[in-house]
């Protein structure tokens, strides 16, 4: 009941926003894309995101425009941003998979069966949906507890007890999924290489000799930012990032070569 009411409120909010943004920059961007003016489409989409707010669809479209303009790094970045907003966006996921198959570096796949399954579970709905599903299961759990407490019938009490036990585990997992989903949606540690290629070094300085060089990675590759180094003059914007690539290889790269998702 509560869910339903919540959904109604959400729908009402939806229709309000939609009617407010009639004839927008985004629509101009769509028509520019359809006319194959991809450069213009990119600018309009960016402008639209800055002024009219962001959405998964908008980021997916921006990614498409970048891809058509042969900028694979920024295309990957845009799709990742779309999926960050809505992990269940199938179009963004499919396009990302397609563009990933085109980039130069292939990340090593170290995922197991369970981590893959968990990842696909998390990706199948938005964080808020998971939160409410977990809540719904919690309500069922409370119901099962009530059944155990109040029922005179032994069979019903047994059902309530064991059902409640199962529901407890389900609830725990769903709550974990919901938190994981929110963490993924709000985390800023992932970044995408947007420069055509960048040299990873063993220290936060330019590669002076060959021994400083770790590896060269290319646009579109995803890295995990662990740490950053800024200059004393401008402590806010970092100059070097300490990043983690496959299998915990740690190295430094220039902050200007990557962009956080």
């Amino acid at each position: 009941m509560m869910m339903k009411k919540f959904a109604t409120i959400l729908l009402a909010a939806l229709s309000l926003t939609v009617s407010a943004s009639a004839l927008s920059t985004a629509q101009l961007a769509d028509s520019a894309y359809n006319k194959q003016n991809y450069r213009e489409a990119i600018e309009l989409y960016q402008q639209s995101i800055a002024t009219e707010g962001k959405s998964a669809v908008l980021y997916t479209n921006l990614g498409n425009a970048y891809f058509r303009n042969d900028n694979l790094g920024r295309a990957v970045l845009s799709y990742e941003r779309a999926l960050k907003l809505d992990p269940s966006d199938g179009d963004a996921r499919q396009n990302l998979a397609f563009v990933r198959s085109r980039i130069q570096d292939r990340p090593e796949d170290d995922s197991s069966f369970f981590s893959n399954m968990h990842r696909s579970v998390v990706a199948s709905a938005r964080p808020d949906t998971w939160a409410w599903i977990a809540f719904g299961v919690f309500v069922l759990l409370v119901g099962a507890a009530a059944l155990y407490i109040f029922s005179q019938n032994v069979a019903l009490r047994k059902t309530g007890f064991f059902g409640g036990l199962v529901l407890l585990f389900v609830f725990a997992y769903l709550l974990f999924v919901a938190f994981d989903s929110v963490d993924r949606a709000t985390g800023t540690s992932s970044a995408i290489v947007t420069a055509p290629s960048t040299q990873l070094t063993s220290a936060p300085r330019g590669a002076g000799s060959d021994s400083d060089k770790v590896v060269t990675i290319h646009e579109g590759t995803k890295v995990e930012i662990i740490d950053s180094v800024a200059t004393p003059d401008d402590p806010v914007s970092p100059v070097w990032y300490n990043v983690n690539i496959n299998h915990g290889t740690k190295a430094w790269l220039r902050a200007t070569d990557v962009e956080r998702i």
Partner: protein
Amino acid sequence: MLLMLGVIALAAAQQPSFSLIQPRNVVQGRNFALTFRLSDGDANPPAAPQLKGCTLLFGPAVSTMSSTQIVNGRITSSSSVDFSFTYRADEPGTVDVPELTVSSEGKTLKSRPASFQILPSDEPRQSGGSQNGGRPSASIDDPSTQTPGRISSDDLLVRVSFSKSSVYEQEPVVATIKVYTKYDISSFMPTAQPAFDGFLCEELPVSNETSIEHYNGSNYHTAVLKKLLLYPQKAGQLSVNSGKYDVSIVQYETVNMGFFRTQRPVEKQVTTSSNAATLSVKALPEPRPAGFNGAVGQFSVSTSLEPELMRTNEASVYSYIVKGTGNIKYLSEPSVQFPVGIDAYTPKTDIKTNLVGGGTNMSGIYRTDYTIVPQEVGAFTIEGVPFIYFDPSTGKYETVDVASTPIKVLRGTGSAAATEQREIEGSINDILHIRPSDSQPRSHSMSYVLRSAVYPVAYAVVILALLVVVVVYRRHIRLQADVTGRKLAKAGRVANKRLRDARAAMNAHENDRFYASLAKALWGYLSDKLQISASQLVRDNVAEKLLAYGLTQEQTDNVLEVLDRCEMARFTPQTSDDEVAEIYRRATAVIKNIEDVRRK
């Protein structure tokens, strides 16, 4: 048989023809003959034509020639009559030979007009004179000047010349290698072939005819050694050398034989040095349009589909035909994309070319045949691939738009594969198209319900609701339990009270009152205890209820006996005190029994 002979006779009867034997160029001052030939005919000699700048010396001279051949019993015969006119060339310039008419066997025959050149005579050479010790330089067809001695580089040379001095990349140009000589040549051996770096080249057929040309102030016998069609592959100044040749020439030695002087031929070995010619090649203008793959010239494109009515599993041929002039041999295959559901095999390319423009350009057909086999029934479209070429005459890129070919595929007959079910399979070859950007709500910042205050509050509300329900339920249960307890207590107390009434009557020895109050107390107690309404308070019903309540048959019988004794005693007034005491004791025991059952 007769008919066959007639056919043979017809075939053998040849048409008379009249032609001018193409005159060669002549040098000023020399005599030359102009010959007309009449084949398979008979006519009077024609009048001599008037030629500009020439003087008729003699003519016509008539010579007749005939030949008969018998091959496998077939007889063929031919005859010809030559009419020759001898002229002297007086003035240099171009001479036009007018058409000449003869009548042969009632038919009027005309020769074609032709033209030739009278070349100026050799200019006197200062350098040649000094080098050869005052000896006059050699001139063609004049053995008296072709004395043995050093050969000047002007006397024998091999030249390369291009048909155009400036071309675009890939634009065909003809290179001609000619030998120029003033002496007769007895043998000719190439020692180094000409090199054509930076060109794709193709040899053109050359005729063995020699001619006379005026070059650099002298007249030479010339012969074409090689003729090549070159396609420049890079921009810049490309040079070609003519190669090296070992040549034996014939010179004439004057021999004094006492009474008269005669001339004797002497051979001399000469090596020609190579000369180089340069061609300036212009790069194709940038930017090159997308889809341009090196076609230079003038082209037109057509497509065809054969047969047009397509059926599944039956092959059709889609042809992409480029016609035109230019580097037709070096075109690349068009990238025709066929729709899904139509299998295409590796295309077959067929190139047919012929020389045009007097052998200076290549024209032809570049045909690409795609064998296609439709697998599915339906309407499809083969997209036309535009053909882009560079036109060197305008210096611009031109695009030939090729119309798309709509095709309709019908079900083929007797094909098993057509009825076979297939899985729908797709492969991702591109990103998905964009969705309307306004199909989703937009926000500047994301908020998550999990991180909001609403979420824990919702849990708290549910837990609180459960607690409230539990508390309320517990209280309700307790209240319910109190009601029953009170009723039970009340039943005991009432029974006690009623038994107390009965006890008082017993002590007062009022036996009638004792039995009445005892019966009342017991019935009332049972009514309350077993929760039987007064209307259903009959002996059988009570027995049943008591058994159901948990009393044994013996105890139930006991209860009923007590009740019966009470009833009976009320109608038998003479009862002893002992009996009364006994009944009272048994009634108390009955109540105790029932209470005991309850307690269990």
